[in-house]
């Protein structure tokens, strides 16, 4: 494989590291958190910028409203908590005070998906991509590793408008170039191929690369797109690849209902109907377990992607 793991790291630490940098470079960046500072890795930001940090306690709705208010006066608020409490808990607040009001708030959500592990289903949101993508004007980003999460965090600070940035808890392969600039809305072609397109996001990108490697040994040439930005969707990149390969597998740490997979299915249905398979959770809640156990049980790994590729190729 042409990518190498530079050493496993958690994506949330990429967020924390970028926040430290933004604290130094962007005087208008402020941070908010709802009693989860340690989990969001923003201790350094707080230590260096105590006055630019707002601890709301366990009150996510209020946090979103305060974030919206802080933009009035020119601040760039990064409001952060667990992904469930950053989306479903406060959907209407985000909708009215941030999205419809077009406020420059960055909603930064850790512990998205199954991989937060042992806490179980109440903390394992698998619907946040779907929720946030439905909000007009919202940008939805799910980077794949530490480096990319850091780059994405830096990038959204300079982008004007509401953003949902989703990342996670487990230590995963860190393989994107350390200095790769993050281009919002631009899919990254990680691997060229001709037989199938694998469109992956977040924690599923690395498994997608492994799958592509394994498939190559079976004589299947897979193209791999890192679709870090789910909205706006890079339709051009998707179409270009799919028109070449003729079939597609989407892979996301999310319910197969409402997420990235359905966005792709919709795009293709309108522009280029194509056989597609979904690597995603199958409309179930999560459960307690280690990150690896859960990804295996719920079919979110390279094996599941490989199987899906074989299925979809047969349907071409």
């Amino acid at each position, binding site marked *: 494989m042409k990518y190498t793991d530079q050493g496993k790291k958690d994506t949330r630490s990429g967020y924390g590291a970028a926040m430290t940098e933004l604290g130094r470079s962007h005087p208008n960046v402020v941070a908010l958190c709802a009693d989860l500072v340690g989990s969001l890795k923003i201790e350094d930001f707080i230590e260096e910028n105590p006055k630019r940090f707002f601890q709301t306690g366990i009150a996510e709705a209020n946090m979103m*409203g*305060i974030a919206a208010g802080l933009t*009035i006066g020119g601040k760039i608020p990064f409001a952060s908590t667990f992904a469930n409490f950053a989306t479903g808990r406060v959907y209407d607040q985000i909708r009215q005070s941030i999205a*419809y009001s077009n406020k420059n708030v960055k909603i930064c959500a850790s512990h998205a998906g199954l991989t937060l592990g042992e806490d179980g289903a109440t903390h394992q949101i698998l619907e946040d991509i779907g929720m946030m993508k439905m909000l007009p004007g919202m940008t939805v980003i799910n980077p794949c590793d530490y480096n990319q999460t850091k780059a994405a965090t830096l990038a959204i600070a300079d982008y004007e408008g509401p953003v949902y940035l989703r990342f996670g808890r487990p230590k995963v392969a860190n393989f994107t170039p350390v200095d790769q600039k993050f281009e919002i809305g631009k899919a990254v072609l990680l691997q060229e191929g001709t037989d199938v397109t694998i469109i992956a996001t977040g924690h599923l990108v690395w498994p997608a690369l492994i799958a592509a490697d394994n498939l190559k040994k079976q004589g299947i040439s897979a193209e791999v797109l890192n679709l870090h930005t789910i909205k706006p969707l890079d339709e051009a990149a998707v179409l270009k690849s799919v028109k070449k390969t003729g079939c597609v597998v989407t892979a996301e740490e999310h319910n197969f209902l409402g997420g990235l997979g359905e966005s792709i299915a919709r795009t293709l249905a309108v522009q280029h109907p194509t056989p597609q398979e979904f690597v995603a959770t199958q409309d179930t809640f999560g459960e307690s377990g280690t990150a690896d156990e859960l990804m295996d049980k719920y079919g979110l790994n390279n094996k599941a992607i490989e199987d899906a590729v074989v299925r979809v190729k047969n349907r071409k």
Partner: protein
Amino acid sequence: MYSQKIAITFGKFLNQGITMAELDKLQNIVTQTRRDILRMVHDVNSGHPGGSLGCTEFFIALYYEIMNLKDDFDMDGKEEDIFFLSNGHISPVWYSVLARKGYFPVKELETFRKLNSRLQGHPTTHEGLPGIRVSSGSLGQGMSVAIGAALAKKLNGDEHLVYSLHGDGELQEGQNWEAIMYAAGNKVDNIISTVDRNGQQIDGPTEDVLPLGNLKQKFEAFGWDVLEVQDGNNLEAVIKGLNEAKSRTGKGKPVAIILDTVMGHGVDFMMHTHAWHGKAPNDEQLEDALSQNAETLGDY
């Protein structure tokens, strides 16, 4: 331009009186505002006259006597006082006041709630209407936003104040209590939040629907400095109350005003009932209502 008046009146009060002549002038604006409200909701047969009429004195006091406003509207509102309407359904009163203060043409009031208008059913920034800094309508969110703006002012070293208005029924929304707890705990003492204590909400009197009880006691238990203003439809009393509240800012506590108003004030058949919370008068009722509020500044 609207700021002229402000330039003259700003800083005049703070435990000072207001002349009868000035009061009369403001009272005329109050009456015209009531006419605007009634005509706006009648025209589209929708909207919320009850709360709007009850809060007219508050708005006139706030915009003509209390707030320190810049000449031109910008979103950031730096170096001026800013206001948030959390109970967004009473947009008619706000729209009228904003228009007559010069934020946008008075004529535009006739587009209220119509297709392609900037005067949406509930206030929004989405259409770029000057004077509005956040969307409201879904209740319970405005105090959090106001607190955020107040925190931004503190960060910016801006000593101006943030004002907000809330329905009493609206206080049943838990987010308010998150915000109330936050503001006290973090000494957000550059905010004055007023509760429109009209005792009414959609389904009936608040004390029947879900009793709010003693609001002063509740805010105080949450650490706020609370002022009760008994006659919220007496312009002088409202101005006095707001000035008193102003004098209590900067002392480590957020300030709340419990403003007793009468829903539907100024129109006899609309008063003291929730019936006109969100119902427009028909032609006959409009005529009756307008006859109780004679034209002063000219209808739009």
